[in-house]
């Protein structure tokens, strides 16, 4: 992400340290992670010490310091999904792709994370792959779903 794009994002918000979380969220939503140089640039522009930006980036769950795969997988582990066997689904994906929480596959295709409640509890258990949502999935269907993205 170049300086001009970041400046554009910063200008959408009040130009003071209180905006840092909002700016970082916009960047995270676009890049799916916060590269170190971007974090440094934003800190400087908003007058926030890098130590504090790093604190924020590691404190809040929305931020990631590691890049995600082309198809980031989010397994919902909210309560409704949990009682419907979300962990079985998570374990199966993790086993199939040989990655665990926050990791990316060697071919950069997939990354996996567990999230808390996507808000469609009626569809439990729910997994999102990229922007697609898969609901009511049995463990046996996991590999088939992953195949669609390979």
């Amino acid at each position, binding site marked *: 992400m170049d300086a001009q794009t970041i400046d554009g994002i910063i200008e959408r918000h009040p130009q003071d340290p209180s905006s840092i979380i909002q700016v970082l969220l916009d960047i995270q*939503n676009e890049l799916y992670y916060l590269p170190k140089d971007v974090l440094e640039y934003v800190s400087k522009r908003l007058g926030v010490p890098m130590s504090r930006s790093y*604190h924020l980036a590691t404190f809040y769950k929305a931020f990631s310091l590691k890049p995600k795969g082309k198809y980031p997988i989010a397994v919902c582990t*909210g*309560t409704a999904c*949990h009682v419907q066997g979300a962990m079985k689904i998570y374990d*199966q994906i993790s086993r199939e792709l040989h990655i665990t929480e926050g990791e990316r596959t060697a071919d950069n295709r997939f990354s996996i994370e567990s999230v808390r409640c996507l*808000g*469609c509890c009626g569809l439990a258990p729910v997994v999102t792959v990229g922007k697609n949502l898969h609901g009511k999935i049995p*463990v046996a269907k996991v590999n088939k779903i992953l195949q669609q993205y390979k």
Partner: protein
Amino acid sequence: MAYRTYLMVCAGTGCVANQSMKVRDKLVAEITKRGLQNEVAVVTTGCNGFCAVGPILVVQPEGIFYQLLKETDIPYLIEEHLLKGRPVKELLYTPPLEKTPIPKMSDIPFFADQTLIVLRNRGLIDPENIDEAISRGAYEALAKVLTTMTPEQVIKEIKESGLRGRGGGGFPTGIKWETCRNAHGDPKYIICNADEGDPGAFMDRSTIESDPHAVIEGMCIGAYAIGSPEGYVYIRNEYPIALERLKTALKQARDYNLLGKNIFDKGFDFDIRVVRGAGAFVCGESTALMASIEGKTGEPRAKYVHTVERGLWDKPSCLNNVETWANVPQIILNGAQWFANIGTGDVSEDPWGGSKGTKVFSLSGKVNNTGLIEVPMGITLRKIIFDIGGGIKDGKKFKAVQTGGPSGGFIPESLLDLAVDYEELTKVGSMMGSGGMVVTDENNCMVDMAKYFLTFTQEESCGKCIPCREGTKRMLDILEKITNGEGTEEDLVLLEDLSNMVVESSLCALGGSAPNPVLTTLKYFREEYEVHVRDKKCPAHACKKLITYNIDPEICVDKGHGCDVCRKNCADGAITGETKKVHAIDVMKCGRCGICLDVCKFDAIYVE
């Protein structure tokens, strides 16, 4: 222009996830194709609440309810219903275990037993069109307040209604407003907490998605009562639809001068800013939430001085959640007495003396009718789960209901006739919380559920105070030991001790309530803990380390003729056998993923 028929397509998150937008597009295309576009209108509405059967379509004005729609159903539906005038039976709702479908939405038990105040507009208006909200009475209460009432009268009305905070704490709203109004400091801030961090709860999201103007109006009325020029909505970043609808609604309200300068020409100025949360459960705590708005990490502070005195930017701040704000306009319009007539207890002397009005719950887990419901305070848990919720899925046995999210507790079957109100739920060790209600059945292990919630709170502990940071960690260690079959009797005693310590000595309510799931399961399901510890077994067959998958040889051969499907699907190569012959699982190789159980059509696989 008036149309003869309105097709109300649900565009709540659940239905959208189920492709309701494709259904909508198909409806529009079919109607245009048949030249009906001047007679029939397609409207996208907010969440209807019955998420279990989405995508949902309601045909108005008759109120015919269609469910589980697919794009391919649409041409036939239009042909039959709109042209020939007969509802399509196969697409109507049929209650579980019954055969006759129920065509009318208002006759379906899920809807019939609800009382709508906060969600009164759900499914009836397009949330992205302020005119539809206004036609249903939005901003009427604001007009009444600005033209005929003093701020003191507004506060008096809210106090008399008995409205209490719907975010979990249940603090009387009128008293909060009054304290904030009387606090010294300028300016004062109004804040709406829409950072629903509770896993398994989506009330606030649905409220904003279906009727954002109710929240905005409530905040305006609060601002007038307290004397605040500026408000904030702190909303979860993970709720893209709610966020967009809220922004649209704010813009439309500004265009109509219902927000901004000199509202209703009464010299009252107020505007609202939207701030997104970045994913921290602890930000539901008022001081942490305000720190987050200021661009800091959400760490709570000790509340020697309350946030109504010194909150955001050290100024007096009044924080209520979405549902609380959305109740306000209706109280103003219908009067305090109307509201106080619904619910339990008496609030005329003691503001904590009862629970008034309704409560929105997100009902999920092992019930047939998962979704969003609004019920009067005082309703029994049994009515919610078995009448509105339609009972337990797949005819299984009810085990416990969890209310209040990670801060709440589990309530066993013996207490199902409990009336839902703030005090009653607290008495049995749970709490109202923001309104998550997750039902578990016989296949859910209570130790595992306690571990689940503790994993959550432990992850979300901000780390500022030691009892919460270290205490929850050690509690989780013990629970893992128990679910791994390594627990001892002493562990149970230690777990209980630690729980009480964390409750008593944590800085904020996150730590103070984190042990609730553990304490309630220990209280009501101690036997289950003891079986884990003593026999190294999980009676519900949920704890992975304590179960084995097996094949019943007789069923496998007699019924399934050794179909071989399990062996082909086994990810670990743990199943041996060939077609027409008996199959067996090698326990040492088995990864306990459960695929074989899923794929076996003959129920030959069993777990012990």
